[in-house]
């Protein structure tokens, strides 16, 4: 089936991009691999019928946050590193073992809780009907502006604090 093909394609792109990001020598290459992984993740969001989240993921994550990283890497002139900043072989083995153990733990949790949580699901027909009547944006907007209006407004406060904090921290000290 075509959806399965695209799922495998995007999953391989996401995992490959993430792995290449961890092991790439140049920070700029690392960042571009991460952008590739985020594009693939947006494709998977589309396959899961979350079209609005897919668009926001591309615009906000790949388009804004990662470009901010790009600006900082270029501003600090970190693009031409000749030796890698990966840790030594002993530390590398320990790190990969810890991450693998964590992945195993997540899989165990998945086996334990997944079957029960999916049983009472909405089903593909319900999701299609909701997208049909409310639209891809309306489906997210309705709970956001009805049930979660106060958290949404507090988010704007958080962003204001972040803007002020970033300016205060990155400003040059007055001579």
């Amino acid at each position, binding site marked *: 089936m075509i959806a*399965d093909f695209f*799922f495998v394609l995007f999953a391989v792109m*996401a*995992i490959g991009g*993430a*792995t290449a*990001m*961890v092991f790439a020598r140049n920070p700029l290459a690392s960042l571009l691999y*991460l952008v590739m992984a985020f594009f693939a*993740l947006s494709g*998977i*969001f589309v*396959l*899961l019928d*979350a079209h*609005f*989240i897919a668009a*926001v*993921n591309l615009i*906000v*994550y790949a388009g804004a*946050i*990662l470009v*901010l*990283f790009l600006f*900082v*890497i270029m*501003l*600090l002139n*970190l693009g031409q590193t000749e030796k890698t*900043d990966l*840790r030594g072989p002993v530390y590398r083995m*320990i*790190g*990969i073992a*810890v*991450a*693998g153990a*964590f*992945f195993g733990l*997540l*899989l165990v949790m*998945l086996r334990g809780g997944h079957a029960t949580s*999916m049983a009472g*699901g*909405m089903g593909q027909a319900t*999701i299609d009907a909701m997208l049909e009547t409310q639209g891809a944006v309306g489906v*997210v907007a309705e*709970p*956001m502006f009805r*049930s*979660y209006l106060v958290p949404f407004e507090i*988010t704007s406060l958080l*962003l204001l604090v*972040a803007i002020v*904090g*970033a*300016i205060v*921290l*990155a400003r040059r000290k007055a001579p």
Partner: protein
Amino acid sequence: MEIETYTLILSALLFAIGTAGVLLRRNAIIMFMCIELMLNSVNLTLVVFSRSLGIEAQVFVFFVMAVAAAEAAVGLAIIIAIFRHYELVDVDRFNLLKW
């Protein structure tokens, strides 16, 4: 198995790769990028569960993105401030709590 199960496994794998990146790299900016990857893998989990437990989970994805944007802005500002002081971004060399 359905696509949901495979997506949850993918999300767990991406989170583990992000963890490995934070543990393995010394460059503070790349550690930040790994944290962004971990946040996005959690977003993937939330979207999967929005299919079974209600569409409200996608609202939380929105909040996670807002927090990620704030965290990236403040974190990168801190990295720039540290770079002005030490001329490097290697986390092993930041060993003094003196300004």
